[in-house]
């Protein structure tokens, strides 16, 4: 008798590859039970491709709904979910979409899709109580440089060689322009959102580097050094003050490690 382990291997393979014949030997239901297994297969593909289409409506607007749907179907086969919450599924879809032959005429598509993913993620975030500039000022400069910061969960930093933020703003406005010229230029974007609201802010390169490194968990000293490498006139103290005034800082490692 087929063990449960072997049976589940066989059915799981059928779900991923679409080859239902091997599993069908053990099934009953109708004259051709493998066709009944197709119902599960169809649901698996349809539910996940629908989830991806819902997450990337701007890409469908830009590249065509048929292209996004077709690529989503291939993505589901190639990258089955590894997490049990479908909200988390699709983080690497932007690269997968951009690598598809049908999207090669749009070199900005990967950046645009990555921006759309970020917009979706921050829109479901909630703001945490921020710490104030005076709280940071009390830390002392020596401790400050070695400290790390936790930023609001609803903030992401993305860079592109295209002005994809303008394109996204156009999409979000709901107004269809007769003509849109997508500027090819280094673009540094802060995506901030909470409770359904999203704001896109274009930053200068040094500020972007500073904030991105902090968001990645680097120390204030390291982030300041990286920003100064990009722009020697960068003022880390002022950048930190602006970050606090934007209510973006939630905790500092100095606070977390305090006795």
């Amino acid at each position, binding site marked *: *008798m*087929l*063990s*449960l*382990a072997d*049976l*589940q*291997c066989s*059915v*799981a393979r059928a*779900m*991923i590859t679409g080859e239902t014949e091997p599993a069908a030997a*053990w*099934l*009953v*239901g*109708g*004259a*051709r*039970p*493998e*066709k*009944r*297994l*197709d*119902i*599960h297969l169809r*649901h*698996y593909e349809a*539910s*996940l491709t629908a989830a991806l289409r819902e997450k990337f409506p701007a890409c469908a607007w830009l590249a065509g709904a048929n292209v996004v749907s077709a690529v989503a179907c291939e993505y589901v086969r190639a990258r*089955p*979910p*590894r*997490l*049990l*919450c*479908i*909200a*988390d599924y699709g983080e690497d879809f932007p690269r997968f979409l951009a690598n598809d032959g049908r999207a090669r005429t749009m070199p900005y598509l990967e950046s645009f899709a990555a921006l759309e993913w970020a917009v979706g993620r921050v*829109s*479901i*975030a*909630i703001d945490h109580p921020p710490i104030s500039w005076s709280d940071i000022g009390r830390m002392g400069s020596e401790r400050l440089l070695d400290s790390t910061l936790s930023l609001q*969960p609803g903030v992401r930093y993305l860079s592109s060689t295209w002005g994809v933020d303008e394109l996204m703003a156009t999409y979000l406005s709901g107004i269809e322009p007769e003509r849109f010229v997508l500027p090819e230029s280094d673009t540094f974007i802060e995506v901030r959102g*909470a*409770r*359904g609201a999203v704001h896109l802010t274009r930053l200068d390169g040094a500020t972007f580097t500073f904030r991105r490194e902090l968001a990645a968990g680097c120390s204030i000293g390291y982030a300041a050094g990286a920003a100064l490498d990009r722009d020697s006139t960068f003022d880390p103290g002022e950048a930190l003050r602006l970050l606090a005034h934007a209510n973006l800082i939630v905790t500092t490692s100095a606070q977390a490690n305090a006795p």
Partner: protein
Amino acid sequence: MRVAVATRAERSATSSRLAGVGLRLPHLAEVAAGVPTTAWLEVHPENFLANPHARELLLDIARRHSVSLHSVGLSVGSIGGVDRKHLKRIRGLADEIKPILVSGHLAWSTHRGMYLNDLLPLPYTEETLRVVAAHVHEVQDALGRPYVVENPASYVGFATSTLTETEFLAELVARTGCQLLCDVSNAFLSAANMGYDVYAYIDAFPAHAVAEIHLGGFTREDDEATPGGHILIDTHAGAIAEQAWDLYAYALRRFGPRPTLIEWDNDLPSFSTLLAEADRADNVAANALRQGHEHALAG
């Protein structure tokens, strides 16, 4: 582990309003804003674990309404085991919203780290019983409460099965102390698809363990497995079928009053449409229970 039954759900079942509705994300803000709703609501925890804003709204709703959790990802039938990290996250949510019930499916959906996002069928054998019972024990130990296991919607069975579905469920209850969720629509469509008598199925269903009933819409399609035949698909994309309402009345006369959920997940209508279905469920229940009482008196 043996666990006590969920008393809040039983108390609500003795009231005249048994029906609740499945609360899906598109209706969340509306319900959080205070629109009138049913006696209780049911949510899929997986929709809230990775969505902090939705979770915040759910916590607010749970302060004012009874809520149950219906997991679609616990996968107690997977040979590879229950995802303990996921189970812990569900426990965390349960600690916050204090649900009246926590339920899930007699099915599997994970395999070697992959999530297959469907409720896949199990053969009803002693081996499967051992696997499912061990996982139900694990879930109950983690949650500190009985897990409520739902009968599946079936399109296929297994030649290797040695037990009927109701025998399997009865034995699972005996081994774990779990409770059961009788999805009347699943029972109806499984019987139609697999060719057995659904009323005999309800007669054999372990009535003492039923903690909840589900009613959901299904869709009739051509059965590619049987030329000229039809198959019913558990789409939750429409109103409850008349045959399912009849079966619901029959089930209530057998089980007694039970919290009953209207499930509608796809082609989601307005929230008021869901409330109308819940009202109908309450009316069907009131009539069925009155008739059952009269029959008992006449007998």
